[in-house]
């Protein structure tokens, strides 16, 4: 809170919302919102996230669901676990990091759609204008 008074512009609220009626599974809702907040700067690098148990309690979810989301975020390099100190938003190069997050989101989406990995790669190559 120390720098709250210095911020002069409208900030994106750093909140997370879970909609049980959404087609997206709850873990994916958590993952995508954390990725979006980390990309937009709403969640700064080094910000400590709540424990899995706390967030699960606040959102009315199973502990395993939140743990699943945290594992996926850690795998994508969005967050990092520092032993007993807790889970933090990882410091990352903004351009590379955002590209990596977009790639992770694309990979998840294609998996959900049942696309073959080779076909998913072909679509990316086409979009990038790369042959072969």
């Amino acid at each position: 809170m120390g720098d709250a008074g210095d911020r002069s512009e409208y900030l994106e609220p750093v909140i997370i919302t879970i909609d049980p009626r959404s087609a997206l599974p709850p873990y994916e809702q958590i993952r995508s919102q954390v990725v979006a907040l980390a990309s937009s700067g709403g969640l700064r690098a080094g910000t400590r996230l709540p424990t899995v148990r706390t967030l699960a309690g606040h959102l009315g979810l199973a502990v395993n669901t939140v743990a699943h989301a945290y594992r996926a975020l850690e795998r994508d390099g969005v967050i990092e676990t520092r032993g007993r100190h807790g889970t933090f938003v990882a410091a990352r190069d903004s351009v590379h990091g955002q590209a990596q997050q977009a790639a992770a989101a694309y990979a998840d989406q294609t998996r959900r759609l049942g696309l073959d990995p080779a076909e998913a790669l072909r679509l990316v190559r086409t979009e990038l204008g790369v042959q072969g």
Partner: protein
Amino acid sequence: MPIALLGGAAVAAVAVVLAVRWPVNDAKRAASALAFAQKVDLGLRPDLVGPLGDRLARRARLRLGAAGAGLGAGIVIMALVLPGHGEHGWPIAFLGYWTVTLVGYGFGTLVVQAMDDLGGQRPRAAHLVTPTVLDFVTPAELWCIRVMALVVVTAAGFGVATAGADAGQRTAAVALLATSALLWLALELSIMLVARSRPAASDVQSLAFDDAMRADSLRATLSASTFLPTLAIGAMYDAGAPLWFAGALVLAYVGAFIVFVWSEHSPVAKQRFRHRLWGTPVTDPSTLSR
């Protein structure tokens, strides 16, 4: 003794029954929701009027119940303490009464917060960064209360150090010190738990109201504890404390009290809960006044 127990139980029971049975219709709920929205300067969507009115009614019932239970407990505590400790018993009795009331209020707020559930199929919103007490009250408010708590414990500690060989006086002094320390611990624990408890919100706007209610409850709890040092200082004065020592504690208390009251009523304190959601209040799009 049995009469005091019965009297305390009767007072507490009447207050609890009144708190539970007090009629609050939909119009009253809506009016209280609108009044609260104006007080905290937040826009109130029609779909939030009902849930907010319900929560405010529950909170009002809790306050009445906690006050009644505290009063009942106070009667019992006085009946237990006063005969054994004479004039030294009054500060213990009052501190005991306020400990029960504040602990009841603090932990009662947690119970109300837990009851404010949204049901299974509604969206649920929470802060992604766990709030702390300082997201709801200013550092000045919190530290003033801590200074006052230190004044209480120091005064009670002085009583123990100068109690002498008289067993009754020593027991009274130790009881006062224990009650003071317990009160401080309970206050710190309850405000920390209230700040971190589960929110009942489905989006940003309802989370803002949840935060505003939390800030209001925390401020009320802190505010209710501000006069406690007078009891401990009075007891210390009776125990024959040196003038410079008593004067220093009185000055510390009066200084902390003035700063607390000033901080509590400052616009910064009232808007504090917004920082967690929107940074500064100046550009907050949810406000009623712009």
